[in-house]
């Protein structure tokens, strides 16, 4: 029979108290906070036995939980051999055209792989999407004698394959030297004032959705009601042209951004695109936040219906309900619920904290807050810095080192 305040290891669940924390109370009395809190917070004073949920039958390196469409708790796993196993223990593969072998290959070598619940514009959902969960993964692909880390997307399930989302911007020219040639029909009278510009993206199709890869904003400005776009297939590096499905043409005019056309990658000859009031009105608007794919992130984590991408010097945060990164060079306006880039280095993890987030970094912990909205970033570095409140706020360097190294001369 335990007396209040007494500590002893209890066999069930291997509960072993850590070194005592003590505090001085009134008149110098010393209390054992650990025992007190243990008694108060864990009335059973022992840990319950863990419950076995799934045995993947291979040594697990990482695992990721998700809720399937029928509200069942499921898990995916990355094994020590870098295999990506679904909740039915089926291995998942990336279908990658390898320029070195000049062939499509089913590859493994995963670093992360999990299921995300997200929404995309109807424009990007293919007509008959698979009912399997949407999966996102990072995988190592060969690059010369080394390797590169690439984000992949697709569905999770037996026989499903993931598609690599390569970071490749199309080169757009007015002449045939570019990968994409674009010109306007100069026989027509100018009708646009101000002129419009064009955005070109490579895109891939998974079983769930079309995904736009990093975009190029045309330097030229156009005023006529018709542009002609030609894909110069042989100018595109083989890795890009064999791993993408086509090109997307987007019109950027005044404050409007409209998706005008999908062009399959092997289309021969010029594609004529009429651009006028009617076609612009008919075209779906383009959300910048679906545009970019993260390049070589250290880690990806989905929290609070946002996806966080951890880079060495910054953290990129998707808009609400979006899984993709935000573009570098398309100058999006920060909007409530939109995403943003946070200039904080060495971020390791993120935790939900009410309507905010806690960013755990090597140098300390930051709280991410918005301006009344759950999240509201604008693309001004100073404003972003102000949005970050470092805790502890007045930590001195020595204290910080002590804190990071664990103190007690462990440095």
């Amino acid at each position, binding site marked *: 029979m335990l007396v209040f305040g007494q500590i002893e290891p209890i*066999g*069930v*669940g*291997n*509960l*072993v*108290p*850590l070194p005592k*924390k*003590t*505090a001085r109370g009134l008149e110098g009395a010393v209390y054992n*906070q*650990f025992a007190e*809190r*243990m008694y108060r*917070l*864990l009335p*059973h*004073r*022992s*840990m*319950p*036995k*863990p*419950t*076995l*949920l*799934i*045995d*993947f039958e*291979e*040594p*697990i*390196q*990482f*695992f*990721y*939980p998700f*809720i399937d469409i029928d509200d069942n*708790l499921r898990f995916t*796993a990355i094994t020590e051999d870098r295999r990506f196993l679904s909740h039915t223990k089926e291995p998942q593969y990336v279908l990658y055209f390898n320029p070195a072998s000049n062939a499509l290959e089913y590859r493994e070598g995963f670093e992360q792989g999990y299921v995300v619940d997200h929404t995309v514009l109807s424009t990007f959902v293919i007509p008959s999407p698979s009912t399997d969960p949407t999966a996102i993964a990072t995988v190592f692909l060969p690059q010369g004698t080394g390797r590169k880390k690439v984000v992949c997307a697709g569905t999770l399930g037996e026989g499903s394959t993931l598609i690599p989302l390569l970071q490749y911007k199309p080169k757009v020219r007015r002449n045939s030297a570019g990968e994409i040639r674009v010109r306007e029909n100069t026989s027509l009278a100018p009708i646009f004032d101000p002129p419009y510009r064009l955005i070109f993206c490579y895109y891939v199709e998974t079983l769930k959705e079309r995904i736009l890869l990093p975009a190029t904003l045309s330097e030229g400005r156009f005023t006529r009601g018709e542009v002609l776009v030609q894909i110069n297939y042989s100018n595109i590096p083989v890795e890009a042209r064999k791993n993408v499905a086509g090109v997307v043409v987007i019109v950027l005019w005044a404050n409007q951004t409209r998706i005008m056309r999908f062009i399959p990658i092997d289309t021969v000859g010029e594609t004529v695109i009429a651009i006028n009031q009617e076609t612009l009105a008919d075209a779906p608007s383009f959300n910048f936040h679906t545009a970019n794919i993260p390049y070589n992130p250290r880690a990806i984590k989905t929290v609070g219906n946002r996806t966080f991408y951890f880079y060495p010097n910054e953290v990129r945060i998707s808009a609400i309900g979006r899984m993709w990164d935000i573009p570098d060079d398309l100058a999006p306006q920060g909007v409530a619920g939109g995403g943003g880039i946070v200039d904080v280095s060495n971020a*390791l*993890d993120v*935790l*939900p*904290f009410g309507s905010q987030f*806690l960013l*755990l*970094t*090597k140098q300390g*912990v930051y*709280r991410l807050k918005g301006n009344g909205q759950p999240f509201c970033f604008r693309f001004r570095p100073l404003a972003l810095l102000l949005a970050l409140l470092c*805790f*502890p706020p007045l*930590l001195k360097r020595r*204290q910080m080192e*002590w*804190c*990071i190294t*664990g103190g007690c001369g462990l440095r």
Partner: protein
Amino acid sequence: MVYYGGMWFEIAGVNETINIVLQPITLLFLRKLEGSEPSIALGIDGKLYLILDESFYEVEAGGVRDVSSLNGRFFYAKNTAVYEIDPFAPVSEV
């Protein structure tokens, strides 16, 4: 990848910070921390901890590879299997 786990602390009635360095606390070398409190944490030595109101509780002595939390539930992977641990479940007698 090493970072520390610390304490949640009340400042002016609002939980605003973790890791009060000037207090006598135990710092753990953690590989991963999941879930807002209670939290589940993985030490760099493979130990599994639950974190509850300024205290750490060791649940597994080693061999844990990963931890995760979803909808207030806590999971960890050891060897080839995934387990759930419920910090508020009634104790099971053996």
